[in-house]
């Protein structure tokens, strides 16, 4: 039984694992940050945001101020998430679901799962 937590991230409630929604690959334990199981790439923002004028301020982020951190599925290469962070800034643990509480609510039928999404049981 999988829950679609983001566009590319599933939560497998049977195995308590994060999985890739695109290829199904298991990433890591659900109580951990899924980003730690991704391949991570630091990208110069100029590669994504092309400078449009020859000037210090040129419509492209300044790489001294910010980098693009790309998180890829290690199996299929889907770009699961991106963060714009100043150099060296800690990565964000963006999703920390109380899996035990969620499973209890599903088992008690307070919530159902249909097509990967929670719905309120009537």
């Amino acid at each position, binding site marked *: 039984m999988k*829950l*679609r*937590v*983001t*566009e*590319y991230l599933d*939560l497998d409630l049977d195995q308590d694992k994060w999985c890739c929604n695109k290829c199904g690959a298991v990433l890591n334990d659900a109580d951990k940050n899924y980003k*730690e*199981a*991704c*391949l*991570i*790439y*630091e990208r110069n923002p100029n*590669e*994504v*945001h*092309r400078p*449009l*004028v020859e*000037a210090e*301020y*040129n*419509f*492209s*982020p*300044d790489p*001294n*101020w*910010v980098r693009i951190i*790309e*998180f*890829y599925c*290690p199996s*299929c*290469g*889907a*770009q*699961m*998430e*991106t963060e*714009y*962070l*100043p*150099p*060296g800034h*800690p990565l*964000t643990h*963006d*999703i*920390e*679901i*109380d899996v035990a*509480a*969620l499973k209890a609510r599903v088992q008690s039928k307070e*919530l159902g799962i249909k097509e*990967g*999404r*929670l*719905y309120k049981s009537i």
Partner: protein
Amino acid sequence: MPIPTLEEKLAWMKPAPPMEYELACVEKLSLGSYEIGVQRTNDILDEAMEVFMRSSRSSMGVAGDSIVSLFTANGDLVNAASGTFLHGMIQSIVIKYILKNYAENPGINDGDIWFTNDAVYGGIHNPDVVVVMPTFYHGQLIGWTGAALHTSETGAIEPGGMSVSAKTRFEEGFNVPPLKIGQNFKLNNDFVEMAAAFGIRAPQMVVIDLKARSTAADRARTRILELADKMGVEHVVGLFRKMLIVAEQSARERIRSWPDGKYRSVNFSDGVGPAEGLVRTSLMIEKKGDRLLLDFSGTSPENFSSYNAHPQAIVGHVSNFVYEYVFHDLPVANSVFAPIDFYFPEGTCLSPDARAATSCSVMIATGVMSAVHNCFGKMMFCTQDWQQVTASAGNAGNALVVAGLSQWNMPYSDMLAYSLNSEGQGGKATGDGVNTFGFPWAVFGRAPDVETMENEFPMLVPFSQHWTDSCGHGKYRGGVGSAQLWVAYHERDVWFLCTADNTRLQTPQPIFGGYAPCTVPGISIRKADLLRRMQAGEFNGRLDLTEILDEQSIEGQWIIEFFARAARSFAHGDVITIAFATGGAGYGDPLEREPELVLQDLQNNIISFWSAENIYKVALDDSGRKIDQMLTSQLRQKEYHQRLQRGLKYQDFQAQWSQKMPPQEILHSFGSWPEGKPIQMIMRA
């Protein structure tokens, strides 16, 4: 009277417990009368909003970047016209302050008109002016009405109300705590004169807008009294209370249906007034049962600029998102915030000292505006509310102010509404963000016609267009923003300033693998040859942003600088600025975007060929009008493969990444690195 404490302000934004009389009135509501009654309040508010817009003088007033609201006798917000929802939320503080402190002296009477613009007492920032009126029915206080609108002038050290250069409250012009400014349905002339004096840069705008607020609040009040006449006063009291009850119950039920957990976003800004500096907004939403806690720990310290915000202003900015996306189908009632708590660490830029400058609070709040999209999005995507998940809109500010003497010899000082009201929406779970969708602070506002701008102000606007590539790219891209060219005209000097940021980096974070919008510089051209060449018919009525930037085809002294700019003057013929409205952030992996949509964007000049090739990995056939499907597939497979080659495992990435940090010179307002703790005391005389 004491300045309200943070605890009081946060508590006053939540609904007061129902009185027995109110609950008895709820019981008397007949079948169907609630639903009809809710629609009647919508109609009343829509009418009052129309009156408000038609009565206003300033650009934002005419555009509808404003709100009219209804409140219970206790001051709780029960519904509001579509507009600046943030203004609705904070008026509960204002009314409850009046009820607590001024019931005896000067008293609260039928026909009163009350005013405030002071963020220390519950406002957003001092250019946001609130007028509220009590609604008495045969001597019984049954509610309040309010009308709020950004004023075009506060008498600060710079024109326009949002002083980008102010460093303390004492440089920001007039700040008026809740004050009775009218009695017996008439404004006091002495107060009107005071407003005109502080608004001496644009007295007709300040005074007419003041009267427009009063008129709009009174129109709503009048219609509520007519409703009481028609349906009975108990119907109105019961209706208002039931709207609070239904909104709260529905909000709790919706929150309860989401998974418990913690959801985080960090967002960065690059402006500290007109100076450059890195500032962080940190948000964690903890969801448990039917409650939410929004915790802003980790946010950078308060700073020595006007880019600070008092906490209730931040709650107001959260309410913009909440009313637009999460509880869009509920009454605009403050009871949806009953299950939502906030934690603001004191001394941060989101909870500064009372002496702090906060006239640009809406700029520092952009980090919160973006963060809520990501935190709520990651909480809701696995639920039946997934279709409401949307990346952040563009919110670089674009608060472009012009001031001086118009071609009609009228003093003016105004924040122009075109750029404000034409930013791009973020990419959505269901499709692209809307191009030039509106004002992230008031999504239903309307960008004015260019002819109106040219008629009101001594400027020429030779082009207005979608801004190619301004969107954040993604499976569903953000909507693009707009670009206009503003040229000083009519042989008049024009004063100009801009409250904005997003030149070194973008505040909106994308979502689910998309990219942020591009950054935006401030561009002006002094001694431009444009007018002479236009008069010679050289451009044949066609000017295009891309050509101007690529070829610098307008000759003159180009100045490319930070987007936020302190006040400066321009002479006839100068390009005052290229007025940019930024695009929305992207949603999802760009390699998943349908190639046909990329082609469509190319044909509509929404994106460039460079982006099609380099971001979306789309190839066209020899005709240049069709997708080369096979080559596109190969390019995308190659890119997937290259990601797997270049991506590092977490430990390897951390080993490199943790050794880096930004240059020390940009961290002056960040706090300690990377904790963001205060490292210097700010002294404000």
